[in-house]
């Protein structure tokens, strides 16, 4: 019983790391309609920029902010410089996916050259441990979980209660109609990239902190987990991304503790496989269905 509770605890931490990143990914899909496979590599870039700051003694909160800012700038540049022009040109949906993969390859390999493929350790001070309900958390992990909750609530507030949120939801539902109603969809697309970029940046830094040792492939390797979480929860749906993250986080940690550590990812993928077999639109399926993800 103890090990199960411990596993759930670890699972919640993993889930928090996955969910911030999955939120950004699913958000970008919901509004811009693209699967951005370069997302993982932008996470790595943000992690590196936060690392550079932290290594010079910048404290945690500010480094997080720097990482988030890097992510925002990177995704904004990609959106305006690469994805939007291709979309305007009329490139089909899978053309855009190939474009994002090309960008991912370029970014990842440039990072490889820049970092000389070294591993880096994210610096942080010694942690206090807390026990609650049979689960163990460090200080930092509790902060990560809290940050995650704050982000999810913040995003929901933004989307439901603000005018900008309404504009974003309208553009997500029907861009043409939104434009006809006077909503500046170009502006909305930019804001979406910035928000997704902030989430991506947070996700990257949190990932680096949680995993402690990282290199230029860390984000890309993580991409699969976060796509699985987003797809499992229903692609495009923010709450879905969080629920998917919790399921995958807890399931993978339970497998690691109870069965075999090397299978933790396999279980996550198995979930994904089952979902795709029986319910490809995911758990919260309204946005997925609206975007005609099922042919």
């Amino acid at each position, binding site marked *: 019983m103890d090990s199960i509770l411990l596993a759930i605890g670890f699972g919640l931490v993993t889930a928090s790391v996955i969910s911030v990143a999955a939120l950004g990914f699913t958000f970008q899909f919901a509004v811009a309609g693209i699967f951005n496979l370069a997302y993982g590599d932008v996470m790595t870039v943000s992690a590196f920029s936060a690392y550079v700051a932290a290594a010079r003694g910048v404290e945690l909160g500010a480094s997080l902010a720097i990482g988030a800012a890097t992510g925002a700038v990177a995704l904004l540049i990609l959106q305006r410089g690469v994805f939007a022009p291709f979309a305007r040109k009329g490139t089909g949906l899978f053309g855009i996916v*190939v474009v994002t993969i090309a960008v991912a390859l370029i970014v990842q390999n440039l990072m490889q050259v820049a970092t000389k493929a070294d591993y880096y350790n994210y610096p942080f001070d010694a942690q206090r441990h807390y026990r609650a309900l049979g689960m163990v958390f460090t200080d930092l992990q509790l902060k990560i979980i809290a940050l995650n909750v704050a982000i999810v609530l913040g995003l929901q507030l933004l989307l439901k209660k603000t005018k900008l949120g309404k504009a974003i939801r309208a553009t997500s539902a029907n861009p043409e109609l939104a434009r006809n109603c006077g909503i500046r969809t170009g502006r909305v697309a930019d804001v979406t990239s910035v928000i997704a970029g902030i989430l991506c940046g947070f996700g990257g830094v949190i990932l680096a902190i949680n995993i402690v040792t990282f290199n230029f492939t860390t984000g890309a390797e993580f991409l699969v987990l976060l796509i699985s979480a987003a797809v499992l929860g229903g692609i495009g749906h923010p709450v879905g991304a969080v629920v998917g993250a919790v399921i995958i986080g807890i399931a993978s940690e339970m497998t690691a503790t109870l069965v075999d550590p090397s299978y933790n990812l396999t279980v996550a993928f198995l979930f994904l496989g089952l979902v795709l077999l029986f319910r490809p639109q995911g758990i919260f399926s309204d946005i997925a269905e609206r975007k005609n993800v099922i042919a």
Partner: protein
Amino acid sequence: MTDAAQFYVTTLIVLFAVDLMACWALNLQFGLTGILNFAFVVFIAVGAYTAALLTLGPSATGGFQEYFFGTHLPFPVPFIAGAAAGALASAVVGVVVLGRLRRDYQAIVMLVVSLIATNIAINQQSLVNGASGLVLIPKPLESALPLTSLGYRWLYAGFTLLLCLLVFIVVHRISASPLGRSLRACRENEVVTAATGKSPMRLQMTAFLVGGALAGLSGAVLVQFLGAWGPNNWLYPTTFLYLTAVLIGGPGNNLGVLLGVALVPTALHEMTRYLPEFGFPGSKEALHWVLIGLLMLVFLWFRPQGLVPERAKHHRKQVDH
């Protein structure tokens, strides 16, 4: 030609031929039918592992490599089995993925399938010897033929080119046939295709199966030449390399794909061998991938139909006198 040069040339020929077979298979799936198969390299791997397992012989306990099934089968059987395994794997994946999902979603799912496969192969040691891979895979008929090592290589190179020709005949016949026309229709507009009475799911599955079989065959041919095969031979960027070859050459056009394969996996890949090392070890390799990514973007922007575009089919109008 010196021995070393002969060694190099035969390797180049075999690699080119294997890449060509694989890219023709990918062209069948992507160029003709429009399925973005990001798990493509998995089917090559399935064929390769099958051929390897069928020639290595049973795994001795306490031996230095473990795998789940092994036997010695004579010459053409491992190749045929490799193709069959590729088709079987395609059937399994196809049932889950095809026909039900939007094209780009389908692509993501395939990518995840590819990563799952790599994950299982690496972690499950008893399956195909995990991350170390299989080695000492015997070449077909090596002991039976009275040839020097170099002579055998030339023979194998010739054999691979012959297989290439056969594969070309297969893909060309499909492409020029009514099936080819239906596949193209399915690529352009699934709803209309269904309205004419042809099931898009059936058509996609057919392309997927044949493509998978050819991919498996190419894997089997490669593994018996290389003699070793591990997860590093089939990482997901390899699919992207083949996709780049098809896209640059001309998706939907088999001769275009030939040009693409000559340019990308062969020329570009091999050319980096001759450039001097700089930076840290591996930076040449990394920059070559950056170049491939850039090539992709440039071609998708300026010439998405590829260097040799698909020939539009013109039908002569009947004129009644």
